[in-house]
């Protein structure tokens, strides 16, 4: 392939240079990279916070955190991980960078809106930091449940406002992606020729668009209650606090699909490439993405079985919850079936993807335990729940994020990283993960509640092991990030297609030129046709 200047050398708009060529850029790739570094910062911060929490819990009694500080710390961990990491991570970084390329476009439809979303994201993060230093960070948990969130003296209003601003950022990103997929797609690309990652982003974008306004108004209501004391959720004045929970989960349950759907999309991209085999059930995966987006919006109240809502509602929402399991299972089945009899080539992205499939399946199956109304009563608000959602959100979305980093890193930076260190990091993270969260399942079944800084003596062993696992996990994450960052000092030698991928991003130089395509893209009749791909490992720069 001919050499062309990459987007690093070509600012867009061209009149800006230096730092302004980044801060005022309209190039979706630069915006994606700015998200990458901001999000990595927040992720590592929240990982360390989580480590501090587990250190407190490693031994019984008050050790390193006071009870109040512990409450603020787990709230901060949750708020950062949810609103500043998992919700934006895959769409804002990899969606921004690769969605336009996947559909043969030179940018998103609204580049300025895209930049605005980034600034809203940064502003939301800034406000969250600001709230730390004024009256203390909220101690409500990331759910901001009333009446506590209205009556506590910590600075809930500012924290809630930060989440509100971040919601706007996410919503505008979704709006941009939907418009881009509809209006910027290459004329030759039909709906069923769109790569699966982009499909999952499209389904996610609809959820972002339609669900986020609910959390926006709900958080505004919390602020209004704190400032004007209207009493809409105050039982003494006729209100019903459970309605707050309804409104909150009307967004926040669909939001877990905002988090996981793009992750599933990443895995659907990676598995066929390294199995050298067309994805099994392309249409089924597309359909299940849409089905998850729709059905995921119908099940919010399964977070509220013990809240005091009616038994009828418990029954209905439990039933619907089981329906959502079906499309997720279809995807897992498709991935495994793609691997079956494939010419599998092990690489770090595939390794992370395989860990994803295992961890996410455990997370999904334990979700059924929680979705069953009867079993839920026993484990509600225990460490079982903590383990379950970390298996889905961290083992799922988090590992998909790691896989995506390793899969697209050579494309984004033109540089290959060291494979051996990547494998060691992956093993450390996965091993630490199991050591960290499996004891929590047991602790939960034994009845240890979540969100307390202390526990009864019989839970000491499990907590000790979990803290031990956390250490390995943090080491692994540190090694992984360091390994990737070190690669930036290497020469740009990754080549356009180091993996043998066939979607459009692998047909252009690494890193891509400013308008992505040097010549009009050729749209394949089917996005996962590997018949033209020979063994690419020989052409790859020595990562191993």
């Amino acid at each position, binding site marked *: 392939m001919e050499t062309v200047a990459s987007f690093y050398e070509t600012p867009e708009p061209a009149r800006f240079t230096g730092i302004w060529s980044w801060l005022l850029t309209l190039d979706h790739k630069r915006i994606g990279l700015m998200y990458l570094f901001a999000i990595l910062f927040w992720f590592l911060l929240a990982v360390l916070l989580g480590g501090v929490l587990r250190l407190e819990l490693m031994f019984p009694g008050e050790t390193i955190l006071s009870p109040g500080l512990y409450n603020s710390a787990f709230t901060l961990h949750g708020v950062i991980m949810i609103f500043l990491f998992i919700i934006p991570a895959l769409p804002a970084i990899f969606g921004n960078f690769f969605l336009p390329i996947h559909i*043969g*476009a*030179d940018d998103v439809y609204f580049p300025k809106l895209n930049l605005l979303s980034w600034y809203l994201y940064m502003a939301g993060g800034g406000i969250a930091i600001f709230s730390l230093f004024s009256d203390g960070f909220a101690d409500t948990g990331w759910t901001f449940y009333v009446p506590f969130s209205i009556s506590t003296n910590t600075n809930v209003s500012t924290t809630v406002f930060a989440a509100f601003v971040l919601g706007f950022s996410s919503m505008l990103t979704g709006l941009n992606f939907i418009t881009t997929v509809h209006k910027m797609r290459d004329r030759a690309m039909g709906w069923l020729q769109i790569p699966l990652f982009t499909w999952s982003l499209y389904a996610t974008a609809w959820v972002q668009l339609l669900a986020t*306004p609910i959390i926006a108004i709900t958080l505004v209501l919390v602020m209004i209650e704190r400032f004007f004391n*209207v009493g809409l959720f105050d039982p003494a*004045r*006729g209100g*019903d606090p459970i309605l707050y929970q309804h409104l909150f989960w009307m967004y926040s349950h669909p939001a877990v699909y905002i988090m996981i759907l793009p992750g599933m999309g990443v895995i659907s991209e990676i598995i066929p490439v390294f199995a050298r085999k067309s994805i099994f059930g392309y249409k089924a995966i597309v359909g299940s993405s849409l089905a998850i987006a729709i059905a995921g919006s119908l099940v919010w109240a399964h977070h509220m079985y013990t809240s005091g809502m009616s038994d009828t509602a418990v029954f209905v929402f439990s039933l619907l919850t089981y329906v959502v399991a079906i499309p997720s299972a279809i995807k897992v089945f498709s991935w495994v079936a793609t691997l079956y009899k494939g010419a599998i080539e092990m690489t770090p992205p595939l390794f992370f993807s395989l860990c994803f499939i295992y961890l996410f399946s455990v997370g999904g199956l334990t979700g059924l335990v929680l979705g069953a109304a009867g079993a839920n009563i026993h484990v509600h608000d225990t460490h079982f729940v903590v383990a379950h959602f970390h298996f889905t959100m961290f083992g799922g979305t988090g590992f998909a994020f790691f896989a995506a980093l390793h899969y697209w890193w050579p494309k984004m930076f033109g540089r290959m990283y060291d494979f051996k260190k990547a494998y060691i990091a992956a093993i450390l993270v996965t091993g630490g993960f199991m050591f960290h969260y499996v004891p929590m399942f047991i602790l939960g079944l034994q009845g240890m509640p979540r969100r307390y800084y202390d526990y009864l003596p019989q839970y000491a062993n499990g907590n000790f092991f979990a803290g031990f696992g956390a250490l390995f996990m943090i080491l692994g994450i540190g090694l992984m990030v360091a390994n990737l960052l070190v690669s930036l000092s290497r020469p740009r030698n990754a080549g356009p297609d180091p993996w043998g991928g066939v979607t459009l991003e692998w047909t252009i130089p690494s890193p891509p030129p400013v308008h992505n395509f040097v010549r009009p893209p050729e749209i394949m009749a089917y996005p996962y046709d590997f018949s033209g791909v020979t063994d690419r490992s020989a052409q790859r720069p020595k990562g191993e």
Partner: protein
Amino acid sequence: MPGQRDQTGKKLGMWLFLFTEIILFGALFVLYAVYFSWYPKDFILGAKELDLGFGVINTVILLISSFLVAASITAVQNDQRHIALAALAGAQVCGAVFLVNKYFEWGHKIEIGIYPGSERLLDGPAPQNLFFGLYYVVTGLHGIHIGIGMVLLAVSLVLVFCRRITAENDVVLDNCGLYWHLVDLIWIFIFPLFYLVV
């Protein structure tokens, strides 16, 4: 190069944004639906306290303003710039009158002791507090949207005046108009739900 941006995408984007506004108000209507189903009698009593005259006048004003905005688009398409300017100015006036009415309406309520956290609401029957709480939150949020809509209409007015919005390039006016109509649309539901429950 691929990816031709045509004007229809901007309209699609605006519609998508309007959907988020619908859901934003929709969440408040969820609260309304639940509390109304629990306490219909108190809501009826609450609605009787509201001034139907203000409600009707403001409804008529908003409908006329919507008509004027729609007419301004027709005018721009027919190259009747002066009619477009007049229609947009008229819509501005309607928006301003709406807010002035709202000011007097709220002012009167506050005068007779009906406002969030007032003694009258604290001591009165609890569900009426809910009705007026929702009334203030919903109409307040709607009022803010009227304000935003007026700014957008003002921008359109200036752009039409500078001939930046023309028959060939009217997507900004279209989108500002869409926003204004949506604000009207939401009022169409607010009006019967707060002023007309019996």
